[in-house]
């Protein structure tokens, strides 16, 4: 921490100056407390008890209160407090249950004043009365709080917490007689110092121990509590019931909490374990700390604001044996590092996007989703002058609305539902899936499936694919006859599908081809599809690869699909006619250049066996008899899968992966597979295709995926009578001993499938209810409700 900023504050005559600094202690500190004059700090721990003067540049050890040769447990301090009225008066709480007071005014070296040995267990906390000079309060592990008058030898009164350990006691700053105590069981009690018999008020503040509390210095009724449940809560105690007004969720159990002076909504916290930083929170902004001090290397055990009216100096002691002074100005502000951007979907697919104003302003032209096609519905700035961070937090909110019907993903749903992934021979699976794809007008996909079938299933056909493959590699193999044959065959496929992967330049040649092959697709039509399609699909691919949520954004997607729906009916019948059309040689050249095209070519080739009779292939078979193992193609198939995944069609990638199983799995690295699987499962779940997604999980071979459906398999049921969870059995409640689910028809307990009406909540055995509702439309329980069974 080499920042050397210096702060000088004028506080009613006295000035506080200083910088961020630290000094090494000899031992871990347990607690610190500041003197009234803000110039001295006392540090106490198991084996340390010293007073340091806070000077401008450094801490200077002023006094060591641990005197005597033998270390005594009385000096093993759990807590220390400096009296806010009397500069000479200190009190410590010892781990062995002793409360010690110290008088710095004593002339001797030993400043120990009084010793109270009334507590049986460790004393966790001591607290002086804010205005009364002689009143000291202690809270102990033994469940008692004791109030001492320093002019007397014994305690004045004892408050019993009913054997629950007391973790903190704090006098109210405003109410003379009131103090708050916090307990290990999560309770907070409010006591009147004059009434030791019972507490004024008690409420459960936290789940698990409440480690600390602090009264608001100005706001009479506000009490902040921090607990093991990692929460800081602010309670309004002025109302009849203590009301939780703010809640801050931290990342570790909260050991200390202190309101920041002069800042109504700020408080500082440090944690008991794991997290070493000190945070200053604005309670109205409970998710991001306003400031963070990161100096300590071990847990911070004590924090104190240096002066009750100065918000910029914070002192802290830590287990790492250092004492620190933090300057608020030097604090790191997590808000600065935060990315104030948010994205959320509305019920009807609308998308709201909030980002830093500057970001949106500069980038709106560039970002595809703020581009010309989608108009922000409204654009609003949120500025809250009350917020201290308002400058940083101001953001622009854009809402994008879906064009009606544009988000249709019915092809996805249909495909997911109808695909067969396992349980049949590979050839059948491929054929089936090809058919599904074709029915949905996704010809390229259909062709891919057929391809796969040829590659992997029919050894007799291997040469064919081999042939096509060689074509895919380029025309260099010098077989003009076959080439031309293939290309002819390919044409319709390209007409409908390849435009997805091609630039406009390619498309032009396509159109030429199509024209020449006398397709029914008009030129304009095709042109138009090209225009809108290429960028849209590109976006689809891009976005889905990284963030599955975004693809819905794409309102044009449906546009791209529509022609697909139309095309097949036209394209398929044409196929055989096209066969005869001679191809243009420059077109051939085109193909060989584009890496995508090889895949398409292969696709196209597969048309041969699918759509026409096998007779055509036999020709090729005769021509080429080099038998290659299916392995030979696995690299190609893997490329194909990656291609689909990159395009955003993880569905295809995963489906092929599952269907082909061992044949290709080894060639794709685990992580990619896992990524595809998770993307696809996520998509399926978004479309509520639970069954399909579960099937995919089940069929996946990746361990990370297949364990997905082994987690959280328990179904919890609540009793219908007492509304408590039924822990042991599904049909009898342990608490009220009622049978929770009686069949309304046969009046027996239902063990197993229970079906009920959501209108009147009567129900019973599935069979019984079905039978009953066949003959009657009224509820079998006789409640008069007209139940429906669907």
């Amino acid at each position: 921490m080499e920042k050397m900023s210096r702060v000088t504050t004028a506080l009613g005559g006295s000035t506080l100056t200083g910088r961020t600094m630290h000094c090494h202690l000899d031992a871990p500190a347990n607690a610190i407390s500041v003197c009234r004059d803000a110039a001295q700090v006392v540090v106490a721990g198991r084996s340390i008890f010293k007073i340091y003067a806070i000077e401008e540049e450094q801490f200077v050890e002023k006094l060591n209160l641990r005197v005597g040769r033998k270390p005594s447990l009385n000096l093993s301090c759990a807590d220390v407090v400096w009296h806010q009225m009397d500069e000479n008066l200190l009190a410590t709480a010892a781990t062995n249950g002793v409360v010690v007071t110290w008088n710095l005014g004593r002339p001797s070296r030993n400043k120990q004043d009084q010793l109270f040995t009334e507590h049986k267990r460790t004393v966790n906390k001591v607290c002086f009365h804010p205005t009364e000079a002689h009143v000291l309060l202690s809270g102990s592990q033994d469940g008692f709080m004791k109030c001492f008058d320093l002019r007397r030898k014994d305690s004045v009164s004892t408050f019993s917490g009913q054997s629950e350990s007391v973790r903190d006691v704090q006098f109210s700053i405003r109410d003379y007689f009131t103090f708050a105590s916090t307990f290990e069981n999560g309770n907070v009690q409010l006591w009147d110092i004059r009434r030791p018999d019972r507490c004024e008020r008690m409420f459960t503040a936290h789940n698990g121990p409440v480690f600390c509390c602090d009264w608001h210095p100005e706001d009479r009724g506000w009490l902040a509590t921090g607990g093991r449940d990692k929460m800081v809560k602010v309670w309004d105690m002025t109302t009849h019931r203590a009301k939780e007004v703010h809640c801050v969720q931290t990342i570790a159990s909260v050991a200390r909490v202190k309101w920041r002076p002069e800042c109504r909504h700020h408080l500082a916290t440090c944690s008991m374990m794991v997290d070493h930083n000190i945070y200053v929170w604005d309670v109205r902004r409970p998710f991001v700390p306003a400031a963070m001090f990161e100096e300590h290397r071990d847990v911070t055990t004590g924090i104190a604001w240096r002066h009750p009216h100065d918000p910029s100096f914070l002192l802290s002691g830590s287990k790492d044996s250092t004492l620190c002074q933090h300057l608020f100005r030097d604090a790191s502000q997590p808000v600065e590092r935060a990315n104030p951007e948010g994205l959320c979907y509305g019920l009807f697919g609308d998308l709201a996007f909030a980002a830093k104003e500057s970001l949106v302003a500069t980038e709106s032209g560039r970002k595809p989703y703020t581009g010309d096609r989608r108009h922000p519905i409204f654009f609003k700035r949120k500025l809250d002058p009350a917020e201290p961070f308002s400058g940083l937090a101001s953001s622009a909110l854009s809402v994008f609305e879906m064009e009606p019907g544009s988000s249709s993903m019915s092809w996805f749903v249909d495909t997911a539902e109808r695909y067969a992934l396992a349980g049949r021979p590979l050839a059948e699976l491929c054929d089936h899936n090809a058919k599904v794809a074709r029915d949905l007008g996704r010809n390229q996909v259909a062709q891919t499936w057929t391809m796969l079938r040829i590659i992997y299933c029919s050894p007799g056909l291997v040469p064919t694919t081999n042939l096509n493959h060689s074509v895919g590699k380029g025309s260099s193999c010098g077989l003009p006859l076959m080439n031309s044959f293939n290309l002819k065959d390919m044409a319709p496929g390209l007409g409908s599908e390849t435009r997805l992967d091609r630039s406009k330049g390619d498309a032009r040649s396509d159109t030429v081809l199509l024209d020449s092959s006398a397709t029914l697709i008009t030129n304009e039509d095709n042109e138009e599809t090209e225009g809108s399609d290429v960028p849209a699909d590109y976006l689809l691919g891009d976005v889905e690869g990284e963030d599955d949520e975004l693809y819905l954004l794409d309102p044009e997607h449906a546009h791209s699909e529509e022609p697909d729906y139309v095309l097949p009916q036209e394209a398929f019948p044409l196929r055989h006619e096209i066969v005869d059309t001679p191809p243009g040689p420059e077109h051939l050249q085109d193909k060989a250049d584009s890496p995508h095209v090889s895949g398409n070519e292969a696709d196209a080739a597969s048309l041969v066996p699918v759509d026409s009779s096998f007779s055509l292939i036999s020709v090729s078979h005769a021509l080429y008899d080099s038998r290659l193992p299916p392995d030979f193609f696995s690299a190609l198939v893997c490329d194909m899968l990656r291609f689909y995944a990159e395009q955003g069609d993880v569905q295809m990638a995963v489906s092929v992966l599952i269907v082909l199983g061992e044949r290709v799995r080894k060639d794709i690295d685990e992580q990619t597979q896992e990524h595809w699987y998770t993307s696809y499962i996520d998509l399926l779940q978004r479309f509520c295709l639970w069954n399909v997604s579960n099937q995919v999980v089940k069929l996946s071979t990746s361990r990370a995926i297949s364990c997905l459906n082994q987690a959280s398999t328990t179904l919890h049921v609540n009793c219908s009578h007492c509304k408590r969870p039924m822990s042991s059995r599904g049909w009898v409640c342990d608490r009220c001993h009622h049978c929770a689910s009686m069949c309304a028809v046969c009046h027996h307990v239902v063990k197993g499938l229970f079906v009920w009406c959501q209108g009147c909540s009567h129900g019973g055995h599935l069979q019984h209810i079905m039978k009953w509702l066949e003959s009657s439309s009224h509820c079998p329980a006789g409640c008069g409700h007209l139940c429906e069974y669907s």
Partner: protein
Amino acid sequence: MRLATAANEAYTASLAVSELLGCKQCGGSRGQDEELGIRIPRPLGHGPSRFIPEKEILQVGSEDAQMHTLFADSFAALGRLDNITLVMVFHPQYLESFLKTQHYLLQMDGPLPLHYRHYIGIMAAARHQCSYLVNLHVNDFLHVGGDPKWLNGLENAPQKLQNLGELNKVLAHRPWLITKEHIEGLLKAEEHSWSLAELVHAVVLLTHYHSLASFTFGCGISPEIHCDGGHTFRPPSISNYCICDITNGNHSVDEMQVNSAGNVSVSDSFFEVEALMEKMKQLQECRDEEEASQEEMASRFEIEKRESMFVFSSDDEEVTPARDVSRHFEDTSYGYKDFSRHGMHVPTFRVQDYCWEDHGYSLVNRLYPDVGQLIDEKFHIAYNLTYNTMAMHKDVDTSMLRRAIWNYIHCMFGIRYDDYDYGEINQLLDRSFKVYIKTVVCTPEKVTKRMYDSFWRQFKHSEKVHVNLLLIEARMQAELLYALRAITRYMT
């Protein structure tokens, strides 16, 4: 209308249990014998425990509704009603928490795969040669698809589990030696490294099974019937008896002797209880008057710590562990070594600096969510469990006695409470009791029925089981504290 499957798993299992135990509602009219006719088969006529006469133990079928639920739970979770459950049901409140925790550790969401969990259980139980637990978990391990080869010894298990062996060893016998280097070694072992969450899961499992082994021996749990028989996965050379029988083979023989001995010393032991009560009363009253000096308090702890290691049963004969269990751990010679017997200086662990409630809980709950809560509840129940009875006396505040037992165990592990006067331990716990505690906690495999019978002769068996609960929970907490402190140190 909507369909729901009402907690299917629990349903089938508890259906089975009610068939097995006889239905609560309609079972009343049937004769007891008939009901017991289809009860779990028992070996050789002695009940779930070799120390506690069978008639003292609750008969299955005669339990009340709460216990019945517990049995059903236990059965549903484990698919069996084991002897540990049958003995623990003396204290249903604790049992409930115990079963819940164990169920969560073994079967619910957690970072470790199921077969790892059981294997770690086997490793831990094997440290104390507790064949009872080993056998149970061998079955479970195979059931969840564990590789039978691993059972041939730790060296056949994956490297990752082998690495855990060292921690297991130290944790079981000398937890105070655990350092952050141990933790670092496990977390930074290249491809065999553990994640922090996995490690915490493993540590909790290890400590759970170490202390459960203590309970098994401390209460003389009889082997389960199905574990004795020849299982095919065992190597053929292994004989059928359980090593519990070898190590403490004096069960049925001296039962008679002890009974007669018990009769003789009735008056003797009566005074024992009276004296104990008297001392408690004295301590309670005299506390404030007689205030020991600081040095004295400090030395009392040291004395108790030192003395605790000389407390050993006279029949300290070495027992060679049976082969079938010892294959799980290589270094049999590594056992409990006392603090300073070998000139070791062990710094005292101050509970005020690192305690379960503040520190341990937070760490466990952070790395293995919900488990911290479950264990915390279990500790609480065990520590606070009381019926306000002592032997034949009612309405006794036993908190002082319970605290003495708890702190004595922690004292043996070097854990010191600043706010406790260790002089109380000497007043409240007599020698035979200390011998028993020491043996159960440190070398449970050496517990004999004689030890069990010789302490607190007038007390009920349920109270002795209660003591055992305190022992195992205190032991578990002590081990956890050392392990978690090391993890914390590693993390900072």
